[in-house]
């Protein structure tokens, strides 16, 4: 390995969500001011799915955001940006050589990684979670320079450590996935991007013909929560509830399961295009997100001091979830036919 020093003049800015943060930072590197919420909204990051038959970390799986790489891929697509995504490599060496070639050309490159062996990551978050994103922007000898938007500052990883996280195994294994921007169009048509992004998100949140995706899934989960104490006992119910809270509030959500980021996107778009419908929806999304926060707050108290009247408490929480689902439905109804 050569000991050349390659450093790209890349600006690390912290963000709420790893992928939209990486995407927005990449756009900024190429000279387009793009906030994190805009990247998230255009890239249709918002999502909901509830898959109780799949167990993740021993509890039902749910997701508050789209599949990995959606935000980068779709935002580039909708905005007409020339970008490349390599979904997987067949072997370790190829994946690292391709990364090195990019760095030599001065291209900051996004990589999908697992966080379990991510040495600079806060220990409390190091689980087998493979959908994390970060940008590699430099190399000095054996050391790679990393911009991880969860962290306050840029970090470094050795060659071996980077291989370890890029080739993490398990659900959604990254298999060396990497992505970058080749070229920006002369002009970014943000308006078109916002329109397309909203249209897709409305579809995914309200119209997918499957009962566990989108608002429908939230309602099913709300009804399930009520049954948990009776069905699984108090202890397991608390653990399941904890899963919802962890998925909604852990690192890289920006809080309240990405609902704040999406609301901020609606707000920014509304201001940019002076659209009252979007501003109105942004306000409602903010209040929905606050309701999510309230849910996690009460839920956390519930998990901490096991309640003496579980059935009643979980009933309340279930009702709250149904209320949240109703509010989110309103948001997407509002923006469904928006003209900007």
């Amino acid at each position, binding site marked *: 390995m050569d000991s050349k020093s390659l450093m790209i003049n890349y600006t690390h800015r912290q963000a709420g969500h790893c992928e939209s943060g990486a995407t927005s930072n990449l756009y900024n590197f190429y000279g387009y001011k793009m906030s994190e919420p805009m990247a998230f909204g255009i890239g249709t990051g918002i999502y909901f799915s509830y898959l109780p038959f799949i167990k993740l970390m021993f509890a039902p799986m749910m997701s508050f955001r789209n599949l990995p790489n959606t935000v980068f891929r779709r935002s580039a697509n909708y905005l007409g940006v020339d970008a490349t995504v390599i979904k997987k490599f067949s072997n370790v060496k190829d994946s690292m050589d391709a990364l090195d070639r990019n760095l030599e050309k001065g291209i900051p490159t996004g990589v999908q990684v697992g966080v379990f062996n991510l040495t600079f990551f806060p220990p409390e978050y190091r689980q087998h979670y493979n959908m994390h994103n970060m940008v590699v922007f430099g190399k000095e000898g054996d050391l790679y320079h990393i911009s991880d938007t969860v962290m306050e500052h840029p970090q470094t990883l050795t060659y071996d450590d980077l291989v370890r996280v890029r080739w993490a195994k398990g659900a959604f294994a990254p298999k060396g996935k990497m992505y970058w921007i080749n070229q920006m169009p002369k002009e970014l048509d943000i308006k078109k991007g916002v329109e397309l992004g909203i249209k897709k998100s409305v579809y995914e949140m309200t119209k997918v013909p499957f009962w566990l995706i989108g608002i429908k899934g939230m309602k099913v989960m709300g009804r399930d929560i009520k049954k948990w104490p009776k069905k699984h006992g108090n202890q397991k119910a608390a653990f399941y509830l904890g899963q919802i809270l962890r998925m909604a509030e852990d690192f890289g959500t920006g809080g309240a399961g990405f609902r*704040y980021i999406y609301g901020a996107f609606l707000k920014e778009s509304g201001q940019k295009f002076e659209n009252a419908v979007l501003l109105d929806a942004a306000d409602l999304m903010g209040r929905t997100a606050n309701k999510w926060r309230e849910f996690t707050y009460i839920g956390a108290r519930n998990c901490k001091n096991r309640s003496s009247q579980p059935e009643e408490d979980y009933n309340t929480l279930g009702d709250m979830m149904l209320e949240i689902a109703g509010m989110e439905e309103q948001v997407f109804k509002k923006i469904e036919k928006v003209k900007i």
Partner: protein
Amino acid sequence: MSDEENKELIYRNNRELHYGFDPEKGYVARVDYQYHGNQTIIQQGWDAAEDRLKEVSVKISAGKLSPLAWHMEKNLMELPMLSAYTGIMKWRIKRHLKPGIFKKLKPGLLGRYGSVFNITIEELKNPPIN
């Protein structure tokens, strides 16, 4: 975050960016530690892992499971994942979870497990169980 809550924080490793919404001020962003209520939930996850590890330790001491089980639990791994990391078939790993069979394993195989867990063969054979 109030000072009172701040005192109780469990984790202070990294400040993150949090968004929020104030009906008056609109959307706000701040950089701070994860708020206290949520830290409790994160800890709940790790407490559960700790409990599982204790259960496994008891079984190993009783001669019902091999030390491999301890390392799996310590690394929060289940069969399919360990199989993917090591390239060893699941049914073989299942056999290696039996103490008698584990004892007879060749260094080559032990080394493969060790490299995945990032430990030496000696450490693999002797997990810190009290």
